[in-house]
């Protein structure tokens, strides 16, 4: 009985045999079947218990909307579980593997490819009108030609700049690339700022600042056949332009967390690219009257004036035991008036276009520009490997801006690595 003396070896053999028997390789269980029509939803009010997972502030405050929903649907009960952002991806993955998913979950837009591809998400029923949402936001839900979620809230990036410094320098907000370069130069040379603009030089998430320039140059990261096109001429052109801000000492090479805001308030940084959350941060850290000193401008236009759209989607899981009611809750959250209430509760911007007709949004000088930009905003392709390719882009952008890699070599390296990573199909 040598088996007892070598339990590890025998167990390993057992495990491998079990694996070989049970495994038998990949079958044809690719569950993202774009051709199949999605199921409909029953009519009538929602019933039963609906469990919902949501992250961050959304998770903490969603119960406010859930109460309204329960009042309108007396037979339904909504259980909201707040999930910390850091934990969310793992928690959802684990739930999918164990088939213990909630009925509805908030899903980060860049996770859609991965989760939809795993076959865990239910296709969006036809009852949802695609045209009601911002097109860039809707695209985040589309995987292999079919939609697997509904955009919940959105954010996009604009150029924040110091109005007073721009006046002092005698420049108008930029409308194209050349003007943006001149604008940053003027803020530095005539406006008195140490840095004309802040662009993220690299590190996690810098692709969100860099890719809009690629889109503005008329390029894209993927062609219509689903092949990476990261070494295209437009990618190089955009990176050349991006890098020039660093070589011409218009943008700082590195900032500590929190430094951006304090330097912008001090007038040391003349402008930067960021999302709507900075309105509140700047009002807080700038003190009284500071909101008179800054403004936001739309992205510069070359071939296009495209910005980045982020945010979160709402998905219903296939393993949901209360599918119809779950979609009804999502439908409720997508109503324009509920989207506005949600904005008033947690300041999330509506993904539904008509939600922006509300004066609380359209009447706000800062927010109205975000609403305008959202009509021309894109998201990265919803493929399962996006996060990994994004990390590659982050790394190569850093090599070009902080290091001395030539942009053409950097994009070539991006393409090579992206090709070896693939698109997860």
């Amino acid at each position: 009985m040598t088996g007892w003396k070598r339990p590890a070896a025998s167990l390993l053999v057992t495990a491998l045999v079990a694996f070989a028997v049970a495994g038998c390789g990949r079958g044809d269980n690719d569950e993202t079947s774009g051709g199949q029509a999605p199921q409909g939803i029953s009519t009538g009010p929602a019933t039963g218990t609906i469990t919902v997972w949501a992250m961050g502030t959304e998770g903490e405050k969603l119960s406010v909307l859930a109460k309204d929903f329960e009042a309108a649907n007396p037979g339904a009960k909504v259980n909201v579980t707040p999930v910390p952002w850091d934990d969310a991806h793992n928690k959802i993955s684990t739930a999918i593997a164990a088939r213990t998913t909630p009925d509805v979950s908030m899903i980060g837009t860049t996770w859609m490819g991965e989760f939809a591809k795993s076959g865990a998400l239910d296709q969006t029923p036809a009852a949802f009108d695609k045209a009601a949402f911002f097109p860039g936001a809707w695209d985040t839900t589309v995987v292999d030609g079919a939609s697997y979620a509904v955009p919940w809230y959105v954010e996009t990036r604009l150029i924040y700049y110091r109005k007073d410094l721009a006046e002092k320098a005698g420049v108008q907000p930029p409308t194209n690339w050349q003007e943006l370069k001149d604008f940053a130069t003027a803020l530095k040379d005539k406006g008195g700022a140490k840095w004309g603009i802040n662009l993220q030089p690299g590190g996690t998430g810098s692709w969100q600042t860099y890719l809009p320039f690629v889109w503005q140059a008329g390029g894209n990261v993927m062609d219509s056949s689903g092949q990476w096109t990261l070494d295209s001429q437009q990618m190089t052109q955009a990176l050349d332009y991006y890098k020039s801000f660093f070589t011409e000492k218009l943008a700082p090479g590195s900032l500590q967390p929190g430094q951006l805001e304090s330097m912008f308030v001090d007038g040391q940084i003349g402008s930067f690219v960021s999302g709507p959350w900075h309105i509140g941060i700047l009002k807080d850290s700038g003190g009284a009257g500071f909101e008179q000193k800054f403004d936001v401008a739309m992205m510069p236009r070359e071939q296009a004036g495209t910005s980045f759209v982020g945010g979160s989607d709402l998905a219903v899981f296939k393993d949901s035991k209360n599918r119809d009611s779950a979609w009804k809750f999502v439908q409720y959250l997508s109503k324009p008036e509920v989207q506005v209430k949600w904005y008033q509760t947690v300041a999330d911007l509506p993904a539904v276009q008509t939600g922006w007709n509300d004066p609380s949004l359209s009447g706000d000088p800062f927010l109205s520009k975000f609403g305008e930009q959202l009509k021309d905003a894109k998201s990265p392709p919803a493929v399962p490997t996006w996060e990994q390719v994004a990390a590659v882009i982050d790394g190569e952008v850093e090599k070009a801006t902080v290091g001395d890699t030539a942009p053409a070599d950097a994009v070539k390296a991006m393409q090579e690595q992206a090709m070896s990573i693939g698109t997860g199909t």
Partner: protein
Amino acid sequence: MSATERPAGAAVAPAGQPAREPDARRRTSGGSAGPGSDRRRSRRGRPLSIRAQRAVAAWLLAAPFFVLFLVFFAGPVLASLALGFTDLRSTDLRHPFAVNFVGFDNYTRLFQDETFRTAMVNTAIFVPVTLALTMALALAVAVALHRGIERFRTLFRVGYYLPYVTSIVGVAVVWRIMYQHDSGVINRVLGFVGIDGPNWLESTTWSLPAIILMTAWRGMGFQMVIMLAGLSAIPSGMYEAAEVDGASQWQRFRYVTVPMLRPTLLLGAVLGTIGLVQWFEEPYVMTRGGPLNSTLSVSMFTLNQFGFGNYSYAAAASYVIFAVMVALTVVQFRLLRSNT
């Protein structure tokens, strides 16, 4: 044959049917069986049956541990090992068995992966340099505390040990602030003596040395405690004899302390290496592996791949660290054995 090694079959067999065959065989092969052998057999039958009961009882008593071990230790370990030979990704979660068996594909890909090789090189620099620095500092402190410093000895011991028991994340956050380019304490102190300090954590040249320095500072206390124990085990008579022979302080250190401390030093090195090979929190908190992967460790690489959903690739990477650690430990225990 000891009781624990006895095959389970032999212990159970005699209850109903006396195992005549094996005995008969033994008789013919041995050829020395006496006439009373049959009676001896039957007499032996009873104690064996008690033994069988004992064996059952033993297995029953051991079962909770054994089952827990199988389910929570051996199972996951072997599953992750098997995982490394498949192409499982996060998109396969609903059908984890419907994946392909890819042999050593993940491992060959790993060694062609430039990022992984960078992580390996970083680790290959980090471990020996940090270990040498930590042990040199710890030895100096331990000798000073053991021989030289009389007053406040306990205070110093606690002081040097304190960083080791402090949360590594907290320590790393504080050091990150100290390393800041313009406002950090370290560059200010360097400024007093006229040195223009580098931008430690943002420089591809200085980020790894900066992390090595912090890790050595933190790990020093642990090594110091081991060495203090080793030092107090050296008979003071040896120092007295050396002194009588006219050995200088340095000679006493070199020819008495170091040789006598050798097993202790090796133990410290073994424990230190195992900890250092898995370095993770320091770059995770201070640099996130950057700039340009200059502080990326193998553990961080593994975590990143896991985060990207490449579960099988991450499993393969973690078994590479495991293999390296096993190899290092075997080498070091060989060294320990030959010298004690």
